């Protein structure tokens, strides 16, 4: 006769009642999967939302003090302070005259940087970055230009002819300006950039630290936050964060209760096994221990499967919604494991009161 060892009983119990073990495993896998997916999304949420807010453009403006131009290496220094993930663009302004004799603000800048910074600019096509005589005409400014394809501007008696690359529509001040590449601007007018627009990723805290650092690195210039952007961003991120938190708790609770119900029902159903083992001399503790062990083995298996499924779900959701991937976070694993183990333990121990009062003989007789 084969000796009955604990692993043996466990193995047989899991294999013999395959359907029931499977349904318990599925329940625990679903709970682990949903917990993993939500927690993974939740971990990445702030970063993802802050990224969406990048489309609002610059959140810090660095302006030269009156009559003192920005130092020539200002852009490099700003970029150094703000970090490589920040986007900075410099602007130089002057007032020139168009071929129809109207005064117009002409701005020299780096089109490649502006394109990354101000993604809301609507234009037919961005000029070729290598083309030195390209000009973007604001839609209102364009009405005061005689020939939009060959734009002639005059500054202090010095004329220049630029190739119009198209109209620019923003609904802001940009509409009444003409933009051109900075080197061409400087060669023509000789005015250095006076404004650097900087976009720092991250929330209000990062913006504040960057401003403080910029102020100490460049004491001679004014550094100001774009207040409405910085304030609005943190408010909305905080609120979405709280909303997500509520949703995660709500869903987790629903799943936990249902898994608990399913599992404890399946333990209750095994009263007869329980009675038989008790009749054969198993102690209350030993039997409860066995039920518990079985539930825990299922819970761990559920976490393993659920983590994979949940990470895949989080990946899919974030691809679908944010168009960026969310990679699996191992850091959520302990919490998921803890939740699942707690559910399994509760599910095994809840029916304890019912089982303890059972008289094996009565149950086996079928009363």
């Amino acid at each position, binding site marked *: 006769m084969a000796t009955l060892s604990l692993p043996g009983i466990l193995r047989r119990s899991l294999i013999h009642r395959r359907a029931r073990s499977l*349904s318990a495993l599925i*329940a625990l896998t*679903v709970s682990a999967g*949903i917990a993993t*997916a*939500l927690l993974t999304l939740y971990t990445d*949420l702030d970063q*993802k*939302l802050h990224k*969406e*807010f990048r*489309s*609002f*453009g610059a959140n810090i403006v660095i302006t030269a003090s009156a009559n003192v131009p920005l130092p020539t290496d200002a852009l490099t220094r700003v970029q150094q302070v703000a970090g490589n993930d920040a986007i900075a663009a410099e602007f130089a*302004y002057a*007032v020139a005259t168009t071929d129809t004799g*109207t*005064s*117009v*603000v002409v701005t020299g800048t780096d089109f490649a940087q502006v394109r990354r910074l101000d993604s*809301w*600019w609507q234009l037919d096509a961005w000029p070729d970055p290598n083309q030195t005589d390209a000009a973007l005409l604001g839609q209102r400014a364009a*009405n*005061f230009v005689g020939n939009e394809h060959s734009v002639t501007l005059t500054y202090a008696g010095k004329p220049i002819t630029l190739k119009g690359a198209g109209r620019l*529509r923003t*609904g*802001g*001040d940009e*509409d009444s300006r003409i933009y051109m590449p900075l080197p061409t601007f400087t060669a023509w007018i000789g005015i250095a950039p006076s404004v650097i627009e900087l976009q720092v990723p991250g929330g209000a805290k990062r913006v504040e630290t960057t401003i403080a650092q910029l102020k100490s690195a460049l004491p001679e210039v004014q550094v100001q*936050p774009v*207040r*409405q*952007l910085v*304030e*609005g961003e943190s*408010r*909305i991120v905080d*609120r*979405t964060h*709280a*909303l*997500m938190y*509520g*949703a995660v708790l*709500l*869903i987790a609770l*629903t*799943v936990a*209760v*249902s*898994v608990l*119900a*399913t599992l404890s*029902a399946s333990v209750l*159903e095994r009263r007869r096994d329980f009675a038989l083992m008790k009749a054969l001399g198993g102690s209350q503790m030993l039997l409860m221990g066995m039920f518990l062990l079985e539930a825990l083995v299922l819970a761990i298996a559920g976490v393993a499967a659920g983590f994979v499924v949940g990470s895949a779900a989080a990946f899919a*959701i974030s691809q*679908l*919604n*944010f168009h960026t991937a969310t990679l699996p976070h191992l850091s959520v694993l302990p919490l998921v494991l803890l939740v699942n183990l707690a559910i399994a333990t509760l599910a095994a121990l809840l029916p304890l009161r019912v089982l303890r009062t059972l008289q094996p003989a009565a149950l086996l007789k*079928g009363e």
Partner: protein
Amino acid sequence: MFFRLLMESFRRQRRRKLLAGIAILLGTTAVTAMLALATTIGDRIHKELAVYGANIIVYPKSDQLEVKVGGVDIKPASTGSYLKESDLEKLKGIFWANNITGVSPELRVSDQARQINTDSPSFTVSVIGLWFDHDFGSLRTGVAQIHPWWKLNGKWPPLVADADSWQVAVGSSLAKKLDLKIGDKFLLRRGANLEGGGFTAAYVTGIVSTGDQTDTDVLVPLPVAQAIANTPDAVSRVEISARTKPEDAFARQDPDKMSPAKHDIWYCSPYANSIAYQICEAIPGAQAEQVRRVEQSEGNVLKRISGLMWLISAAALLAAAFAVSAAMATAILERRGEIGLMRSLGASKGSIALLFYSETGILAIFAGTLGYLAGSGLAAWLGARIFRGDGGAPESILIPVLLPVVVALALAVAIGGSTQSISAALRMNPSTILREDA
């Protein structure tokens, strides 16, 4: 007999019914709350995004080109063209008038100011005439509402047409420069464009910090600026905040090149472009533009957040469906003995199935309705907690459309979840079930 069975089943098996009922209740609560939040999140986030200011800007069509760098007019227009303040009433008549949540007209005037009791010469300041808390139909609106990030110390100047003195608000940098506190006065020239216009006392009712160029300006009620410039009824620019639908490819098309049917659809969609188009039609000589920095980016953020909420709602739905069907399956599994007994007493498979489905149905409808109420309450509570401080009482989210949807879902999931167990129990030989259970 059928009804007695049904009733007795509910009376006698309270624990089992309670378990299944709780599962359905929790599931529908979660789904209702998530769906209610997801459907209202658009409006809520839009309100939050209002912090970015106006999304439509209106200016006179024949205006001269602004020569402005960093908010400073380098060459102020000497004789500009203006919009009429009285024409703004026409905004209430456009198709999407109800979507307009804020209107703020302004008139910029360059004026002379002088400190009182000193011999220092007068200097040029920029005076902006504004609405502060203006009654505009059903709306109280003005510059403070469009620029929620402005910080005001004191009060906005009240609208009094007092001929002898003016009440004004000053920007924080100007207040510092002139050493002005609330209640102090300084002198502003009346009739800047008129020769020999005298100075008038201006009392400071508030000091405003804006974080931009307006910090150096004097903010006055619109009629005061009109009096200074001697241009009654004139407005140089209007900022409008409107609830819009994020722009898509259709919204970007040129309305004048559309077919009439398409034009109607475009016209009747709350795109920023179509609202701007309607404003141009309503106000003579006006040019309206969407502020792309605000409009495009808001659309982006709004789309992402509501998309996230819908996906989470889908997750809630999945979780709830799983919870309910698992609970139902367990409930049936536990009652196989009953099924065996009924079969052996001669009940047909059909009538047994009907009995069980009816029980499930009653449970689903009852618990589903309760769950709908609980979920609506939860959504209102969550919404009020998270979005508190928006002003206004926490709005109750009782969306009637959700009731049939949620109950139907509960019904479908409960019946779907129990079908497999019922048919499995019915397939089994009654004697096997009875013996196994004995």
